[in-house]
């Protein structure tokens, strides 16, 4: 009995710091950030003076907040369905018993291995108006009427960012959908083939309806990413030109560390957190807490 107790103590000694640090760094910090959003902390000296909902009232009257929110919604509305569709398409193509499937999958996944700082630098070169890859390519193909300022054009910059992010995440999306496709029993598809169903019908009626799990997973992952995105846009455009590519994460960073409005920055962060939790928690609860009953 005694050794058993000693063993429990060893495990306890290891578990306690791990769990405590997790609670502190994730939940403690989130709570602390929430608290800071109710203070008037500006400038270098921290302040804990409570000002109620003042920061939130300022936020809702701040045109920059609405611009950032609008840009963020645009990003979500284009990026999330975009990356899911490309991923589904690539997964279906890879599922056709192709030669070199592994090589294709690796190539598609390569952009996802890179830091956003690297991809932003690569795409700065792609989109460079003067001699960047895309404009030069359009020139060569005789499509020079399509040449444009890309990320220097306030009307195009969010679309340019979305396209590059779809490029970066398409491989990840493909992996999720491919795992889903592979989990469908082959007998079902065989049965449909025997019944004389066309390829299109098989996908429409048999395959796609069974991909609910990968659809939900990828939706949650990409949605959360688009809400908290910062690195790629910051390195590529600094939120510019003007405010045209400010999204919530970018504005939060500028307000906090550029203008030293710490309490106000905490308010932005709280909004990002609340929206993320609203999307994620119901889903996660369903997946992980259900079995308890």
């Amino acid at each position, binding site marked *: 009995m005694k050794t058993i107790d000693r063993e429990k103590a060893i495990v306890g000694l290891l578990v306690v710091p791990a769990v405590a640090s997790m609670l502190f760094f994730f939940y403690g910090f989130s709570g602390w950030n929430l608290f800071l959003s109710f203070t008037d902390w500006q400038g270098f000296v921290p302040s804990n003076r409570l000002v109620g909902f003042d920061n939130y009232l300022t936020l809702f009257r701040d045109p920059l907040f609405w611009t950032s929110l609008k840009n963020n919604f645009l990003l979500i509305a284009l990026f999330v369905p975009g990356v899911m569709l490309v991923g589904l398409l690539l997964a279906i193509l890879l599922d056709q018993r192709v030669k070199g499937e592994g090589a294709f999958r690796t190539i598609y996944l390569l952009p996802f291995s890179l*830091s956003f700082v690297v991809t932003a630098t690569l795409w700065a070169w792609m989109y460079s108006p003067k001699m*960047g890859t895309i404009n030069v390519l359009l020139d060569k193909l005789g499509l020079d009427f399509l040449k444009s300022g890309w990320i220097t054009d306030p009307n195009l910059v969010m679309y340019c960012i979305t396209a590059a992010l779809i490029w970066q995440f398409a491989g990840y999306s493909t992996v999720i959908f491919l795992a889903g496709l592979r989990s469908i029993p082959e007998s079902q598809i065989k049965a449909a083939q025997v019944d004389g169903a066309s390829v299109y019908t098989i996908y429409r009626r048999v395959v796609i309806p069974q991909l609910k799990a990968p659809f939900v997973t990828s939706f949650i992952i990409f949605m959360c990413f688009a809400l908290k995105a910062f690195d790629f846009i910051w390195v590529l455009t600094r939120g510019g030109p003007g405010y045209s590519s400010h999204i919530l994460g970018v504005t939060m960073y500028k307000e906090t560390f550029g203008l030293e409005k710490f309490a106000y920055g905490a308010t932005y962060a709280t909004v990002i957190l609340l929206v993320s939790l609203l999307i994620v928690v119901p889903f996660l609860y369903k997946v992980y807490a259900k079995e308890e009953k």
Partner: protein
Amino acid sequence: MSRVQSRRVLVYLLLLSFAGLALLPLWSGVVTALKSSKEVVLSTPLTPPMRPTFAPLIEALDYLKRPLVNSLVLVGAGTIVSCFFGSILGYLFSKYRFKGSNLLFLLVVICLYIPPQVQLIPMTRVMSNVGLYGKLGALVLLYMFFGIPMCTFVFKTLYEEIPTSYIRAAMVDGAGIWTTYRRVILPLSVIPFVIAALLQVTIIWNDYLWGLVLTRGMANMPVTVALANLKGSFVGAWNLQMAGSIWVALPTLIIFVFLGKYIIRGYAGI
């Protein structure tokens, strides 16, 4: 050509064009990094260099060498500590169900989705209070603990595949919870450790925001922050920017090319 054959051709054409799209920015980056500044202006971004030169790569490496070492330190410390704790927690969550264990595990998983923005300001404050603000040590400390939820999740998922009967057999033999971990679980943990470690290495190596906020000066900053600075200070020097990108991209590219199947197993679970 029959219909089936033409469909095959279409499939391959599509696969190849998407592969081309995926590789296009990388190709453009590599060929540009091998050109002199003069050739960058005179040639297109896609043509291979007429006179390849390693000068930009050497110059970029000289600029990035200290931050590269910093990032290695971060990756080492963060990966080892997170994996160790993650393995133990994953073991407990997968093999010892107790009242509320699902709920506690839910709390672990939610951590993966908490946006980093909420941690920035408290993090800055804590690090200034303990005198680590601006230093590499601040990041070392944070990466050691911030990877724990992710590692716990990965280990828990993979340990589910180990039959519970192994655990019961060890218990019957009188092994306690710690001996069972050491004698039964750890020897079966090579693949889980590889998967979790590769995930941590890529995540920490590629991270940017925390380094941007918490570190000051070349002696402290991770390589991603240094690359962003390089991009900001050498505007127009595309060959140098691409050369810097290659150095930062190389380790994770190698991991994905040669150990991609482990990475995929890790990401497929999340």
